């Protein structure tokens, strides 16, 4: 590939940008089917209780109500996104485990009647003692959230790389610190919804605001007892997910159940409060980090312990605590690591995947402690990061294969962007700069057999149709895949139509999680496009009397490399193909999974985790008002090595989003729970940063060309979220000399700390 890229690498608006701007894009709530009913869910008002009896008779009699269901109506099948950790019923059967747990569902001719019917359902509960803190929940004698899970520890991991004890013995300095990362909510602008339709042939179609159409199909199949062949999951436009839509929810199951039993389409749309209380949130985690270093500031050993407050159910529990530990092994060289992680049940809202998935919490602890260590050892925070960076091609202590690594460059460029040399330690009291690093996998290779497929068709008129299972949830997956195919076929992006995320039409794809879409689905689409191109090039090479290997497709033309005038238009090439009696359309297929080694579980044996790894540093400048304790984030310089950028506009969007997410986590957001009750489940009460808090953002490119990514690409999604929050808290230290060990750093905490410092 020596020619210039013409589509990949360009700043291009998303394929659906105009439709979204005009309001014509169709989200779940825009979909209306003839005879459609509206569903609502009754949720538990108690944090922990036995269900003694449910009386639905009054609700059933209400005019306009078409169906009422409870946990006793549904099959005894639990669901869960991780097969070995399934622990949740679509509707509670005998027990509720948090305020918001689903107890019953109603469908009616309009949402108001459904709402009214909920009030007519009478549930007799026997309240049980509840537990709200993971450190309490693991004690002997604590109430058990699930009777069969001792000490409420539903998942745990103890993984050692190297020999930690020995390495601590050899360390010149050992530091141990504890941290806490709070619960925050994803809060996608589009609340969760589902619409299901059942046809008399026994086929069930569900439109769902999901990031994982194929996993959802599997979970619906096993819980509804309907074969996957009879189930079709369609993802319409999705208004953001951030990991919260990586799961099945009661709305999916109940919409299907009612549709099957009543024969009319049924739609559920969650309220904002339900999104806060009844879906997923970032796990609150208690973390402790012990780090041993030599005199030069090289890390020799790290011991990491994490207690995650999982809430009432597992969701992604085993994956989350595993990711948290494995990704302590990048971007810094940690020759010896011991990670202990515990996922603990409590009677609270459920933790789940959220942008970064356990890694941001771990990175908050590590990046904060690195700054504290730098201070104690009199090293520059940038220098200690550069000194400990892993490098491409070096043997890795966990046997990760790092083909490209721009971490050192990201540290240098983020520092330059924020004015580190002039500012760190030199600004007046109340102003400061701080940085944090990070690294992230572009999907997974060895943890499970996960693959994507794609089909590309090229028709007589030069139009390209791409079928991909990838789930675009607003991040622009369809645009990126369209660009990859257009680049490979030498057409314009406007020639490409992408049909995606419909389990009845498109090839298998695991979905949007693990930041793997661009590399995995992008590679599949590229392979399918290459297959189409090869077929066409065979004919063109005869016409042009040139070798297939010498042909280039670009901007709707095919020509001989080095001689742009020796060629033909794509239109003429397709005419030649057809008149040469070759069947149209030209169809290419591709499927891709990351190279793996056996065995494919890293829990048993070391090995590579991901096809490639992104690297990043974000550097923040803050202003702290010592009178009121308020922090203003003035600027964030974000340097991200995401390999080759397929679309810099979208990468910048991801970086901007990560800065807002990081600000929220570091300064403002907190899901406040009192005795199991979420106290602030609305945009008004929760307090997100708004447009008025936006800092200046400088997005800095650090391009590496990765051998496994499509056109050299790596992830630029979740990874962007791991560094901003610790960078901000590190900058607060530089501004006022106080180390905060927990988030959010609120004005009240700052004032209190300043007063204590005076004493």
């Amino acid at each position, binding site marked *: 590939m020596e020619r210039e890229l013409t589509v990949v690498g360009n700043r291009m608006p998303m394929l659906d940008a105009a439709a979204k701007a005009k309001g014509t894009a169709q989200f779940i709530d825009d979909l209306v089917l003839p005879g459609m009913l509206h569903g609502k869910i009754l949720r538990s008002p108690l944090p922990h209780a036995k269900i003694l009896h449910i009386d639905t008779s009054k609700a059933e009699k209400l005019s306009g109500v078409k169906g009422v269901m409870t946990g006793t109506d549904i099959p005894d099948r639990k669901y869960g996104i991780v097969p070995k950790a399934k622990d949740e019923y679509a509707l509670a059967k005998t027990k509720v485990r948090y305020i918001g747990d689903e107890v019953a569902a109603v469908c009616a001719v309009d*949402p*108001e009647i459904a709402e*009214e019917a909920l009030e007519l359902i009478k549930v007799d509960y026997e309240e049980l003692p509840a537990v709200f803190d993971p450190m309490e929940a693991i004690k002997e004698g604590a109430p058990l959230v699930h009777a069969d899970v001792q000490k409420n520890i539903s998942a745990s991991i103890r993984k050692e790389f190297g020999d930690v004890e020995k390495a601590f013995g050899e360390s010149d300095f050992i530091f141990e610190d504890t941290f806490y990362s709070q619960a925050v909510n994803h809060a996608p602008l589009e609340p969760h919804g589902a619409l299901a339709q059942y046809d008399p042939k026994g086929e069930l179609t569900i439109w769902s605001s999901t990031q994982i159409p194929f996993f959802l199909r599997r979970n619906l199949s096993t819980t509804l007892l309907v074969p996957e062949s009879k189930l079709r999951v369609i993802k319409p436009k999705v208004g953001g997910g951030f990991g919260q839509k990586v799961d099945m929810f009661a709305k999916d199951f109940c919409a299907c159940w009612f549709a099957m039993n009543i024969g009319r389409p049924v739609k559920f749309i969650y309220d*904002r409060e339900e999104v806060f209380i009844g879906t997923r949130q970032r796990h609150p985690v208690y973390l402790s980090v012990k780090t041993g270093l030599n005199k030069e500031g090289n890390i020799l050993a790290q011991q990491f312990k994490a207690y995650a407050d999982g809430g009432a159910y597992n969701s992604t529990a085993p994956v989350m605590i595993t990711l948290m530990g494995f990704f302590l092994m990048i971007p810094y060289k940690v020759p010896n690591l011991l990670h202990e992680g515990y996922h603990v049940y409590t009677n609270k809202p459920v933790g789940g995947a959220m942008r970064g998935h356990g890694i941001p919490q771990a990175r908050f602890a590590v990046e904060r402690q690195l700054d504290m260590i730098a201070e104690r050892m009199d090293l520059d925070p940038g220098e200690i990061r550069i000194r400990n960076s892993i490098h491409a091609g070096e043997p890795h202590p966990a046997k990760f294969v790092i083909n490209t690594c721009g971490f050192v460059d990201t540290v240098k460029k983020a520092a330059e962007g924020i004015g580190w040399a002039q500012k760190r330690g030199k600004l007046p009291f109340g102003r400061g700069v701080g940085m944090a690093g990070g690294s992230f996998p572009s999907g997974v290779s060895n943890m499970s057999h996960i693959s994507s497929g794609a089909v590309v068709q090229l028709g007589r008129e030069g139009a390209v149709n791409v079928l991909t299972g990838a789930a675009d949830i607003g991040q622009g997956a369809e645009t990126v895949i369209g660009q990859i195919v257009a680049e490979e076929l030498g057409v314009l992006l406007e020639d490409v139509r992408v049909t995606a995320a419909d389990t009845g039409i498109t090839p298998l794809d695991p979905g949007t999680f693990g930041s793997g879409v661009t590399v995995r689905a992008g590679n599949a689409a590229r392979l399918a496009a290459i297959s189409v191109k090869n077929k066409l090039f065979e004919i063109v090479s005869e016409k042009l009397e040139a070798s297939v290997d010498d042909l280039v497709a670009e901007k709707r033309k095919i020509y001989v490399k080095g001689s742009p005038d020796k060629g033909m238009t794509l239109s003429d090439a397709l005419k030649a193909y057809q008149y040469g009696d070759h069947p149209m359309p030209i169809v290419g297929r591709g499927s891709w999974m990351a190279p793996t080694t056996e065995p494919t579980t890293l829990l048993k044996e070391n090995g590579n985790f991901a096809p490639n790894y992104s690297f990043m540093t974000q550097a923040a400048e803050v202003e702290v008002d010592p009178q009121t304790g308020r922090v203003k984030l003035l600027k964030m310089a974000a340097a991200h090595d995401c390999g080759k950028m397929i679309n810099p506009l979208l990468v910048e969007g991801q970086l901007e989003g990560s800065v807002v997410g990081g600000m929220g986590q570091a300064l403002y957001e907190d899901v*406040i729970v009192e005795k199991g009750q979420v106290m602030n489940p609305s945009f*008004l009460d929760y307090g997100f940063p*708004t447009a*008025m*808090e936006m800092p200046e953002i400088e997005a800095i490119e650090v391009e590496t060309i990765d051998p496994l990514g499509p056109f050299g690409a790596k992830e630029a999604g979740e990874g962007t979220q791991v560094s901003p929050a610790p960078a901000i808290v590190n900058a607060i230290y530089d501004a006022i000399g106080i180390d905060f060990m927990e988030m959010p750093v609120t004005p*009240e905490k700052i004032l209190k700390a300043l007063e204590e410092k005076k004493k």
Partner: protein
Amino acid sequence: MEMNTRIISHEFEYFAPNSIQETLILLDQHGSEAKIIAGGTDLVSQMKMGKHTPAYIIDIKRIKELQYIAGDMVLKIGAGNNLRGVMNFFLPASVPYAGLYESIRSIGKTQVLNMATIGGNLCNGSPKADTAPPLLTYDARIKLVSLKGERILALKDFHSGPNRTIMEANELMTEIQLDKLPKGTSSAFEKKARVGADISKITCAVTVVRDGDVCRSCRIALGAAAPVPMRAFQAESMLTGKIMNDALTEETSQQVAQEINPPTVGRTHPEYRRHLAAVMFKDGFRRAWQQAGGGK
């Protein structure tokens, strides 16, 4: 638990009268079961949360008689003016009323300012109402009208508790009255919230009448600092007729902090609110004092 269902699930009858007189007749008939809606920026979400379930909604948005700002010695502001209109009337060039301008601007959101009315902001009764503190420092009066007649009372006597006012069910607020402020007057408004365009954590308005280095009078009012929007009368009295200096400002700020009566529930600690009250008084006073001195 207040759940915002996004749905107003109960039935109600809707009236859109065209005049004050029609409104008063409706209020006379249905007052105790009715709610007046103007912009609806507070009421609609409260209804979705089930806080109010009125049988009748009386929409006064279209009543032109309530939308005027006029007068010389007494400035009369129709209660039905939207906040944007009031804000534009008091552009910052209007030094005496800068605090009112700033309070409305702090609400921030154009859509809300276009819908919400100044009467609604007061009648909602919230201790956090952003326009209340500056109006209190202007010694504003309000006019309440019913079929039985009208009464004019001081705004400071209007709020009777959190989200409560002394307004009777058959009454309509029609007007806010402001006396012309003496020469040398300026005012300022300070607000703290978690993020921009947010509900206030605490607010403070200061109006000063300045004569050289002498403070002829100073009026201080705070929002979200007590069960109702409040004046800090004792702090005010410390400044009357005094030659200003930093020590006196500091001392007064401590009195402001003492004088407030912050709620003990909620996520903001009362001591933090007291601390903020002092800081905000100082900031507000400094700005108002400078503006009143003609930029000195």
